[in-house]
C-alpha cells in the first residue's frame, strides 16, 4: 500500500512496511549504517542509523514505515549522536587504518569520514584481543571487530546449516569465534563473501591483502554516501 511520510519536513511517498533506511535513500536522504545489509533481516546492533521517528530516537534500519510518520534525520543533535556512536566503535577496538588490509574498503572508516569524525571523544581503550589464525583460508583480526553480527547471522555451513561464526561470552568482553572445521570446509567464494560482508578488517582472506592501489580502492572510487544513494544522490 502506498503511504505518505515526511523526512525532515519533506513529504515522501513510500510503500508501507518498507525499511526506513531504504525509503530515505530512494528519496535522496542518506542515513549512515554499519550493520544493516540490504536484503537481509535487520540486525539493529550498531545504532549508527539513529534518527527521530515521531519524536523518539529509533534505529532507522529497524523501522518499517507507516502512514503519517514524521522522520527527522539531518538535525545537529542527531548528526552528533550518529557521529558519537561511530566514535564509540573506534575507541572500543584498535583501528590503525593506515596499516589495515581493509583500508579504503572499510565501511567503518568510510562512514567515519562521511560523518566528519576526526578523533573519538571517548577514551581509547587499547584492548588486547587475540587473533584467530588457525583456519586454513580465513582469519580474524579481532582488534577491528565492531560486533555487528553479520557473520554470525548470515554465514552458515552449506552442508549442515550450522553456524561457522558465533559469539562467546557477553557484554564488552564477548568475542567472535570461528569454527575451524567448518571454516576449512568453506568454498573459496564463501570465504570471500564472509570477508566482504564484514564491514571492517576483521574477517580476512589469507594470502590476500592490499591488492587495490591507493586511489583506486572501493570508497575512493565512490563514497559510502554515493553508494547508498545510487542515482538518487542530491
Amino acid at each position, binding site marked *: 500500500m502506498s503511504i505518505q511520510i515526511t523526512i525532515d519536513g519533506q513529504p515522501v511517498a513510500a510503500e508501507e512496511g518498507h525499511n526506513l533506511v531504504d525509503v530515505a535513500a530512494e528519496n535522496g536522504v542518506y542515513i549512515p549504517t554499519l550493520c544493516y545489509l540490504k536484503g537481509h533481516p*535487520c*540486525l*539493529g*546492533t*550498531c*545504532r*549508527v542509523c*539513529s534518527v527521530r521517528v515521531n519524536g523518539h*530516537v529509533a*534505529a532507522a534500519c*529497524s523501522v*518499517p514505515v507507516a502512514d503519517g510518520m514524521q522522520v527527522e534525520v539531518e538535525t545537529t543533535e542527531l548528526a552528533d*549522536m550518529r557521529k*558519537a*556512536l561511530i566514535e*564509540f*566503535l573506534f*575507541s*572500543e577496538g584498535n583501528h590503525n587504518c593506515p596499516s589495515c588490509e581493509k583500508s579504503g574498503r572499510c565501511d567503518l572508516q568510510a562512514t567515519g569520514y562521511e560523518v566528519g569524525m576526526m578523533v573519538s*571523544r*571517548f*577514551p581509547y*581503550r587499547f584492548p588486547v584481543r587475540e587473533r584467530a589464525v588457525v583456519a586454513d583460508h580465513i582469519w580474524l583480526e579481532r582488534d577491528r571487530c*565492531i*560486533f555487528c*553480527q553479520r557473520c554470525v547471522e548470515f554465514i552458515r*555451513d552449506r552442508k*549442515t*546449516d*550450522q*553456524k*561457522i561464526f*558465533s*559469539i*562467546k*561470552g*557477553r*557484554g*564488552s*568482553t*564477548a568475542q567472535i*569465534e*570461528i*569454527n575451524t572445521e*567448518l571454516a576449512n570446509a568453506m568454498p573459496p567464494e564463501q570465504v570471500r563473501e564472509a570477508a566482504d560482508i564484514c564491514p571492517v578488517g576483521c574477517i580476512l582472506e589469507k594470502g590476500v591483502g592490499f591488492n587495490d592501489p591507493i586511489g583506486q580502492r572501493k570508497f575512493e572510487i565512490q563514497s559510502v554516501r554515493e553508494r547508498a544513494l545510487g542515482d538518487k544522490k542530491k
Partner: protein
Amino acid sequence: MNNKIQAIIQRYQADRTRLLDMLWELHYLYGYLPDKALSELAAGLNLSVDDVRETSSFYHYFHDHPTGRYTLYLSNTVIARMNGYQQVLAALERETGAPVGGMDESGTFSLYETPCIGLSDQEPAMLVDDVVFTRLTPEKVSDIIRQLKRGRSPAEIANPKALPEDEVAYVDQLIDTPVCKTGEVFFQQQDDYAGLLQNALDAGPDAVIGIMTSAGLRGHGGAGFSTGLKWRLCREAPGAAKYVICNADEGEPGTFKDRALLTRSPQAVFMGMILAASAIGAREGIIYLRREYIYLKAYLEKQLQQFREQGLLGDRILGRAGFCFDIRIQMGAGAYICGDESALIESCEGKRGTPRVKPPYPVQQGYLGMPTCVNNVETLAAVTRVMQQGADWYQGLGTDDSRGCRLLSVSGDCLRPGIYEIEWGTTLNQVLSLVGAADPWAVQVSGPSGECVAVGKSGERRFGYGDLCCNGSLMIFNRSRDLLDIVHHFMQFFVDESCGICTPCRAGNIDLRDKVERIMAGRGCQQDLDEIVSWGSLVRSTSRCGLGGSSPNPILTTLQQFPEIYQAKLVQQQGALLPSFDLDKALQGNEQARIELTQTELTALPEVTK
C-alpha cells in the same frame, strides 16, 4: 558415546529450543560444562559446538571450567554492603581457601560474587548450590563452612529437619517472607478457583479482556502497559499457537515481591495465567523462574500438580473439551537482561538472552514466532483478584492514572524491611514512616534502572505512573551512606549485565562508570560532569532495549537530585592539562624504554659500522 548425555538429548527429543534445560542437566552431571560433553550435545542437536557455547557462555551460572564440590554465590548488593558484606566475604575466603571467582586447592569450594538474589530484606545472603543462607555473619559463615568440610551437605545444614522440598515449610525454613502490610489485592485467601474460572469461561474471552481493560489494570513489571490491551492484541494476532509467559525473573536489584507472591500465593499467579490463556487462546504457558529462586521450584511444581488434579490445568479444563492449557517452569541461568520480555523469550528458546529488534513485538511474534503474552508475576496475581472482585471494585482503588495497589519490596535503612502493599497515590513520606525509616536521606525507587530521589525534595511525591513510577524496588539510604559509591556500584552492575549486542550500552556504560571513578578519585572537573550528561543521554536514547535505556539513570538522577555530592568532589583545571591526566603516570617507563630501544638499535647495527 556417553549414555547419560544421549539420555538427556532423548529426554528433550533433541529439541534445540530446550537447550537451557539440557545445559543445566549437563552442569549438574559434571559441575561445569566440559568441552567433550558440549561437543557430544552439539552433535546430537546438529549444532556446531561453538553455537552451543554461544548460549552457555551468556549465563553467569554456567561454568566452562571445573568448579568445586560446593559452589557459593555471595550476593553483592549495596544493601549487603551496608550489612557487613566485606567481613562476610573475608570470612568466606578465609574459611574456604577459595579466592573470589576461583576454587580452593582441594577442589572443595568455588566462590563467586553475584548480583542481587532477591533477598535484600535479609542480606548478606548466599546461594550454596541449590539452597540459600541469609543474614550471614562471619561466625555463621565459619560454622557453615566447618560443617561442609565435615561432610554435611548444604541441604542438611540449611534444612536440618529434612522437610520435604515441595512444602512451603521448606521454603520458610530457608528464608523469611515478611509481608509487613497487606491490602485489598494481594495475598488473599481464595478457596474456590474452580468457581472463579467457571465464571470467566462462561463470560467468554472478550468479556474477560473487557474486565481487565475497564479495571484499568496496568502491568506491574515496570512499563505499566495495559493488561487488557496486551491480551486483546495477542488474541487478535494471527498465529497457529499462542503462549502465556509469567515473568518471574525478578532481576532488578532490591526487589523480592515476586518471590513473596510465589511463596505465599502461587495459585493466584497460576490462575492469572489460566485466565490469560482462556482470553488469548493459549494451550501452553511458561513460568520463567530465575535460577536464584531454584529453592522454590519443587514447591511450585507441586502446586501446579494440585491444580492439575483439580482439573484447573491439563486437558479439558473443568471438563470443557475446547480448553486445554498447561504450564511448565523454565529455569533461567543468571542474567538480569532475561527480565526483558523479548530476551526472556529468546532464553526460553534455548538461546542467549539478547533482546530482540522490535517490531515485531511479542504479542505479534513471540515464543517460537507465535503471539505471546508476557506478564509479570504481580500482574497475574492482580488479574485473579480483579476477576474475583470485578472491574468497578478495582477502579475504586488507587488514582486516575494508576488503579489498584502495588507491592513494594523495602530494604535498606529502616526498622522493618519487607513487603508492603500500598495503594497507588500513597506518598513517599507515608511509606517511609510506615517502614520505620528514622533518618532517610535518599531513596532508590525502582532499583538501579529507576531514580534516586532526595527525601527532602521528593517526600511528598506520590507513587503512580504519572509521578513516582515504581517497579517494586525501594532502597532507603540515610546520611551515613556514600551515594557516589552506590552510584558506582549500580553502573558496574549495568556494565556486567549489558548483553553487549548494541554499541551505546556495551561501550557507553563503561565510559560512564569510569567517569564516576574519576570523580570519586578527586580527579574530575566540570567538563566531566558535562560529558556525563551528554553521554548518558546518548546511551539512554540510542540503545536497543530498556537496559541501555535506563542504565545512565543512577548517575543522571543523583546528579539532578544531589548535585552537591558531585560538586564537592570536583577540582579546578590548572593550566593546559585536565586534572584527570596523570603526567607522571603517562611518562612512567618512558626512560627505561628509551634506554632499551637505543641498546637494541646499537646491537642490531651491522658489524662494520660499529
